[in-house]
């Protein structure tokens, strides 16, 4: 029988490459967080610890409004994307062969890699053609469309790994398909749907390009707001808002991973995303 491996069994090369890789990923974020507590207005001169930029942020009405808009858009579009994405995953895994299947899976997977500028432009032109009022709802629809594919991939990989005999047993005992789905399938794939929702939420909350195309005069999202500030140069307030966003994401991930400590949680299929 094979002995369990410990860190000591890893070669120096492997340990170094993992350490360097993670350092590359986390160092810039760490620097950003540290400098958000910098008292000096000059971003690169250290003037002692301070929370003044967080206080300044609280008085930045436009920024807070943009953040609120982004949160609402992200919550609504992630929920819609979870429903549609789960349906699409069920179709791809369970519906067997049907006419237009290749076309269907093409439609589902293409938005995963399609450059954002093309998605944004095409959605805007659709909204113009439909003569829709551009703003909050058009951005929400755009985000739903773009993120539902991500939900599909996450849910699909979960559907593929779970034991189908449970569903079959329920059906054999006379349980109708819809009820089987609700009482057997849904609880089993729920961790994946939750992960997909979180992913969709983050993608929406994070998106600049598609929102810029799809929005109208009414709605400015947080990334659009940050982007217009960043274009004017580096500002300490931006460091502060970035730190808050990182803290929120980190808290969300910790809560989610604690909640799914059971084995199901570790199999949500992160590795198949995008």
């Amino acid at each position: 029988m094979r002995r369990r491996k410990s860190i000591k069994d890893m070669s120096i090369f492997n340990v170094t490459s993992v350490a360097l890789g993670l350092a590359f990923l986390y160092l810039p974020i760490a620097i950003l967080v540290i400098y958000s507590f910098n008292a000096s207005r000059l971003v690169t001169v250290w003037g002692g610890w301070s929370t003044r930029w967080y206080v300044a942020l609280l008085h930045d009405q436009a920024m807070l409004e943009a953040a609120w808009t982004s949160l609402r858009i992200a919550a609504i579009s992630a929920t819609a994307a979870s429903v549609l994405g789960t349906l699409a995953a069920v179709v791809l895994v369970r519906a067997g062969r049907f006419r237009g299947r290749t076309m269907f899976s093409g439609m589902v997977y293409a938005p995963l890699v399609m450059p954002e500028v093309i998605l944004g432009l095409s959605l805007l032109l659709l909204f113009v053609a439909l003569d829709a009022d551009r703003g909050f709802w058009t951005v929400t629809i755009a985000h739903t469309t773009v993120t539902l594919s991500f939900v599909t991939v996450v849910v699909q990989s979960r559907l593929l790994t779970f034991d189908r005999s449970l569903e079959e047993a329920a059906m054999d005992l006379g349980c109708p398909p819809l009820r089987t789905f609700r009482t057997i399938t849904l609880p089993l794939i729920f961790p994946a749907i939750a992960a997909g929702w979180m992913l969709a939420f983050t993608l929406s909350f994070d998106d600049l390009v598609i929102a810029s195309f799809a929005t109208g005069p009414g709605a400015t999202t947080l990334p659009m707001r940050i982007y217009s500030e960043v274009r004017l140069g580096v500002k300490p307030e931006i460091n502060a808002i970035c730190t808050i966003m990182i803290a929120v994401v980190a808290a969300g991930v910790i809560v989610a991973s604690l909640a799914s400590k059971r084995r199901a949680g570790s199999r949500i299929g992160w590795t198949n995303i995008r």
Partner: protein
Amino acid sequence: MTSAAETASRRERSRRDWGRRLVILISAFWLALFFVTPCLIVLKISLSQTAIAQPPYVPVLDLAAGWPGLRDFAAGLSLDSYRLLGSDWLYLTSYLRSLAIAALSTSILLLIGYPLAYGIARAPRPLQPVLVMAVFLPFLTAFLIRIYAWINILQREGLLNDMLIALGIVREPVVWLATDTAIIIGIVYSYLPFMVLPLYASLEKMDEALLEAAADLGAPRWKAFWSVTVPLSAPGIFAGSLLCFIPIAGEFVIPDLLGGSDALMIGQTLWTEFFQNKDWPVASAVAIALLIVLLAPILIYQHVQMRALGDR
């Protein structure tokens, strides 16, 4: 009695069939309306001409005008926007530049991502999900933030220059921002998770006994790596590279914030045509041409993805 049971089961089956059709239709309808139709509209507008009107192009398809309306519409279509793309060096260099930057960054991503993914796949089992999560986590913190973090570091009085001067490597601050180096650093940083995760997924499945066998048969380690590990991780290499290459070629935010204003990537050209020049037909033609260039990689990616998800 048998026939009654048969009828019931047939009715049940047809109901199930309807349910199945409905499930297919809901998501298919959404994607057809909000993904396929928009792409067709882009194609249509790319064949139109700019006009000072609302919407700012002619001809406008007026289905209410019936057949003559459709004929007028078809007569008004032109390839002018595409001719412009072919004749103006600005567009051509922009495409080539995007592809070159995408190819270069994808290679660097592979060089950095492979050892990282390999290291994670050889880590102790219980540690692996933690490391995978650690690679994935930065992806969840806003993309814009991560680019912004690099502006802090790369600017003239930024940390990188401070460090290089303190170490005595350079005397004068080096210009990093507004260069291609900055663009590539930003791209490699943002896309690293997309490279590492597929690589890890394929490396993790590999049986280490194969390497032991190669060693027993006298293969040096580099040779075993080259002729066993690399071919076995080929699906991951393909998936990761395409996953990075395709979106990078159309990238807008990173070159816009970190790059210079003298040479544009194609995503920026599209953005400028649309938002600044308000030239919708040319912007649409740029998009369609980009799609055509990326069509082969996108189709290959879809194929790889479908196989990975056990769906042929």
